[in-house]
């Protein structure tokens, strides 16, 4: 068996550092010893395969049992590709988010903002053959946190992606254009490279917007690539 093609090393500055003093929770949760580099083996080059039979899609977060959630209805659509430009097909995309008032339907969220009985905030779809995904949801509200005085998280939707190899695992957040909280947010600013940071901001797209129904935001995602010779999935 030939060796799997190695993943490209991550480009310096384009990923956050574990030790980010401006984000207080990293203080006791970042490793202090040097990480050990593992060459790409079958362990990293392969990854989970989720059958849509076992993991049914939750593509519309804006309606619960036929009842619409409160807030601004939006369409979030994008394409998942790898660093070599290839679409990542049939991969699971999970999202979760606060409601329009900035409150998570989560027992740990004690923010004094109302819950919405018609909004839970979990979504899951699989990309199509061209790597495209699409959700209908509600624009999440900003919410306070205790990182520093008067700290507020910018509006965001959490994303989780798998790709085809475990080394491609991605947990990120999608932001919204024009949000004044972005410049004040230490999580967003944990990414040193400005262009890499700004790629987490979705684009308003009038062509994706559906008249008299919902605004459209486009959020394309790039997973790590590993050269020109894709290995067969096993």
């Amino acid at each position, binding site marked *: 068996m030939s060796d799997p093609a190695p*993943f490209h090393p*991550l*480009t310096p500055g*384009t*990923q956050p550092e*574990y030790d*980010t003093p401006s*984000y207080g*929770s*990293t203080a*006791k*949760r*970042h*490793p*202090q*010893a040097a*990480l*050990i*580099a*593992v060459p*790409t*083996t*079958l*362990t990293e080059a*392969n*990854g*989970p*395969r989720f059958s849509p039979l076992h993991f049914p899609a939750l593509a519309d977060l804006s309606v619960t049992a036929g009842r619409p959630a409160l807030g601004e209805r939006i369409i979030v659509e994008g394409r998942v*590709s790898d*660093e*070599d*430009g290839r679409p990542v097909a049939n991969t699971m995309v*999970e999202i*979760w*988010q606060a409601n329009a008032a900035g409150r*998570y*339907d*989560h027992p*740990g969220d004690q923010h004094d903002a109302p819950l919405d009985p018609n909004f*839970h*905030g979990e979504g*899951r779809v699989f990309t199509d053959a061209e790597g495209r995904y699409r959700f209908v949801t509600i624009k999440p509200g900003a919410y306070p946190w205790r990182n520093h005085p008067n700290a507020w998280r910018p509006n965001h939707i*959490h994303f989780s992606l798998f790709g085809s190899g*475990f*080394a*491609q695992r*991605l*947990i*990120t*957040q999608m932001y919204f254009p024009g949000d004044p909280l972005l410049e004040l947010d230490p*999580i967003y600013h*944990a990414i040193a490279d400005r262009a*890499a940071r700004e*790629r*987490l901001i979705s684009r308003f797209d009038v062509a994706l917007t559906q008249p008299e129904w919902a605004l459209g935001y486009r959020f394309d*995602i*790039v*997973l*790590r*690539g590993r050269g020109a010779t894709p290995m067969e999935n096993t």
Partner: protein
Amino acid sequence: MPAATANQTIGPYWHLIEHAEWADLTRFGANGEVITVTGCVRDGDGAPVADAAIEIWQADPPVDAAFPGFGRARCDAEGRFRFRTLKPGPVAGRGNAWQAPHLALALHARGVLKPLFSRLYFAGDPRNESDPLLSAITDPARRETLLAHEIGAGHWHLDIRLQGAGETVFLTV
């Protein structure tokens, strides 16, 4: 193409995508040697990491309709997690090398801005001696942080320390 999209923390509210049954990789009827894997995650002060998501991925046995190869579990208030899965066999390494049986681990939590990758090996397995990763870790105390111990029949336990004394070996994959 631009570089890979940047990671951001999973935050404290990721349980909206938690489904407790995902921690049981045998739930679709997989056949094999069933094991329980438990652990406890602590931070640099030794305090439990109560909001972490622990993920396991194993390239062996091969994924099929009955075996997803992937599981996700929450840490509870004491930082404890638990999986049920099939005991892996060895996995091809690079060249002619073989890797000892192992689980790949990914840890996500508030205060962790990109996934922390590690591995769980099975203490006492003679194949550990020739495993390329374990062999590359010369400090026995560091190496020990990747070895789960069998604390009951078929029950393997590994503690994870994010920082400080006994800090787990984390990996760049």
